[in-house]
């Protein structure tokens, strides 16, 4: 499964005060708070961890068909290794691990979380207002050579979105995220 989350850093700075007393304690473990405190750019570190947790939440919920719940603290961001001078993180929740990939620019942070079954994925970014569902459908149809007019997004009882072709479910994990000026789509291609 896949989950993603994008944060428009300029909008996030307007919408949230990350230094609000008691705020970080509701979201982050002591260790995560310590990493944020020591970071050169505390805002970026805050939103990076936040996006990791949101992405892992989506992947986890979709993987097991869970009801919605709001408890970012049970999603634990764990530094796993250093690869090509990039810190690799995983998020652990209820004994399951999700691998995190992230892109950080001066304007946005994007994270996506992958369950072990997903090996290959595609990402697309948009910096203007687009119909994300349409963009996803056309990207998926193109990649898998499917007739674009037959592919639809359907939401199940838990409001978890799935791709269908005609009336058949096509098992392609994907995730969409939008915030402020930015959007991103991610889907599995293996």
């Amino acid at each position: 499964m896949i989950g993603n989350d994008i944060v428009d850093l300029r909008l996030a700075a307007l919408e949230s005060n990350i230094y609000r007393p008691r705020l970080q304690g509701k979201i982050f473990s002591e260790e995560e708070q310590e990493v944020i405190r020591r970071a050169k750019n505390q805002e970026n570190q805050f939103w990076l961890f936040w996006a990791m947790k949101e992405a892992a939440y989506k992947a986890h919920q979709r993987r097991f068909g869970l009801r919605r719940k709001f408890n970012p603290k049970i999603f634990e961001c764990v530094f796993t290794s250093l690869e090509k001078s990039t810190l690799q993180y995983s998020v652990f929740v209820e004994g399951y691990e999700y691998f995190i990939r992230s892109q950080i620019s001066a304007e946005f942070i994007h994270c996506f979380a992958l369950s072990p079954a997903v090996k290959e994925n595609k990402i697309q970014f948009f910096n203007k207002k687009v119909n994300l569902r349409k963009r996803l459908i056309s990207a998926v149809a193109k990649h898998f050579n499917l007739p674009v007019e037959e592919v639809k997004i359907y939401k199940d009882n838990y409001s978890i979105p799935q791709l269908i072709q005609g009336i058949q479910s096509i098992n392609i994990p994907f995730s969409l995220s939008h915030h402020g000026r930015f959007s991103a789509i991610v889907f599995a291609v293996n």
Partner: protein
Amino acid sequence: MTDTEIIERLKKIVTPYVQRKEGLENFNKKTDFLNDLKINSANLVDVVLDVEDEFDIEIDNESMEGMLTVGDAKQIILRKLE
């Protein structure tokens, strides 16, 4: 404190974070913070903190986990005020 009074105070608390203002017109216990009011999930933490301050209670993470609608919030407040 009556249910209506709690719901009125909740409405005042969430209003600054609401991105879909029409959602406030029919504000009732079924109103969903994310789906109906489009409050962003980071601001949901602010709502929790504001509720703690307004009602002088502490909302632990287990309670916060199920705080997705106005009715959920009202139940949690009532339980903590007991």
